[in-house]
């Protein structure tokens, strides 16, 4: 009883987080190599060696950082990723946290992520990190509305705010087909949330690493890990909300989840490498003027579809 209801879900979430974060490194390396980065060591080993190096490096500090916030921010980001992954259902019976409002809980994870990323940049007390932090707030406050509209879109046919119900409602047809605008918009949200690729406004190259520019050693390892873990959590949510979660023929449910999550991850990492960074001002305008109306349309579409 304890094992099946408590230990197993906890183990599943934490193991997925760890293995998933490692796989993010592997897939990203493989995509990079496929796109023509010079081939060094095998992609399987690269994340491990990088992690080992960061563990042996000295942790940098700045002149007068906000110590507690600075050390807490990476750990909190990791904890948020874990929370996000905990609401993802793996099969009709294996659901780590089956809150009746798990969709809303995921929304709060998105909102809190903005706070944590801001805190990471703010507490370093250096110019480049500060700019990165504030830029991210502009993005974080813009994508949140899009994400909520899109997720309400998937909650409509399910008549519930529970991810397990959302998955169950896709038995006939996956939401990715039923609401064609939803997944692309949600993927953009995911890139924003993990500040990956085109929406890397927080840790970008023009800021010499942005919020992470003054961080080295173990704190940087935790930060990178948390970012990858958040990507994993996001892919889990995207797979449940749009790709039918555990549903699928022949294979057992959790396996389908893994496959779908890997697909979402690969797509996200590919977009991250192919699209240039968007300028902050353009990014905010794009979110509010183009993507927000699109998410409106998605919601109306979903509403009509659910009633017919």
């Amino acid at each position: 009883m304890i094992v099946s209801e408590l230990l197993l879900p906890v183990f599943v979430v934490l193991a997925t987080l760890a293995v998933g974060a490692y796989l993010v490194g592997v897939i990203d390396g493989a995509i990079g190599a496929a796109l023509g980065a010079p081939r060094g060591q095998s992609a399987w080993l690269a994340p491990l060696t990088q992690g080992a190096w960061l563990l042996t490096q000295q942790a940098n500090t700045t002149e007068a950082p906000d110590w507690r916030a600075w050390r807490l921010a990476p750990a909190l980001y990791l904890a948020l990723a874990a929370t996000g992954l905990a609401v993802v259902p793996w099969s009709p019976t294996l659901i780590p946290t089956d809150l009746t409002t798990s969709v809303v809980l995921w929304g709060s994870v998105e909102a809190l992520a903005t706070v944590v990323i801001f805190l990471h940049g703010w507490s370093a007390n250096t110019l480049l990190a500060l700019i990165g932090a504030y830029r991210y707030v502009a993005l974080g406050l813009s994508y949140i509305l899009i994400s909520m509209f899109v997720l309400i879109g998937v909650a409509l046919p399910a008549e519930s705010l529970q991810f397990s119900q959302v998955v169950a409602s896709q038995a006939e047809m996956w939401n990715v087909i039923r609401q064609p605008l939803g997944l692309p918009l949600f993927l953009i949200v995911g890139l924003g949330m993990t500040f990956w690729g085109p929406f890397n406004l927080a840790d970008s190259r023009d800021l010499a690493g942005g919020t992470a520019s003054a961080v080295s050693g173990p704190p940087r390892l935790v930060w990178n890990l948390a970012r990858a873990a958040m990507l994993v959590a996001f892919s889990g949510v995207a797979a449940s909300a749009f790709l039918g979660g555990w549903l699928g023929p022949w294979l057992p449910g959790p396996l389908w989840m893994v496959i779908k999550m890997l697909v979402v991850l690969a797509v996200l990492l590919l977009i991250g490498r192919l699209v240039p960074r968007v300028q902050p001002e353009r990014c905010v305008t794009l979110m509010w003027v183009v993507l927000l109306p699109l998410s409106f349309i998605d919601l109306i579409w979903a509403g009509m579809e659910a009633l017919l």
Partner: protein
Amino acid sequence: MDYPLTVDIAFLLLAILAVVSGWRVFCTDSMVRASFFLLVSFIAVGVIMILLAAEYLGVAMFFMMAVEMMVMATFMVMFMMNPAGLNPMMMVHQHKFSIAAGVVIFVLLAGVALLAEFPTNPLPADLDPVTSLGNELLGDSMLIFESAGIVLLTTMIGVVVLSSHRGRYGGAHEGSMPPGLVPGGDPAGMPKEDEEEGGGHHHCH
């Protein structure tokens, strides 16, 4: 209604967290920390709401307050001197009076809570809080719901008018000038600039 012991312990910890972080808001030097202490206080209250079976309200509290406190932090940093609290400071007035007022309010409310007899009507077992809230919104309280929309719209327009500097018609202070009576002339019905600026001088404490 009886709750299991774990819930009671959790409530106790959360209550302490909510009060302590609420208190820390006013005695920390860093504005960012102050905003996020307030956020922690809200989150603790949100978790208590979830324990009370108001799952939707509790979780919604997280995301509403995360956004609001994020905005709060940016504004705090914008407008407060020494926003990170590098130098300790105490920007308070009527300090003793405020403490007294706070204590009096607490004692009064606590007295009401302790002495008044409230009916005990726990939640029906089959109640789905979210559904009942949804039905209420679309049914009896439809008017509240729609008027909230109007009020929010007014807020949005007011906010834009007040805060936006560079509007469609140029800068905010220019935009507030009526056009001149003759082309290129002084704005109609406006006092001269120096009169308008007359009373302003800085207050530093």
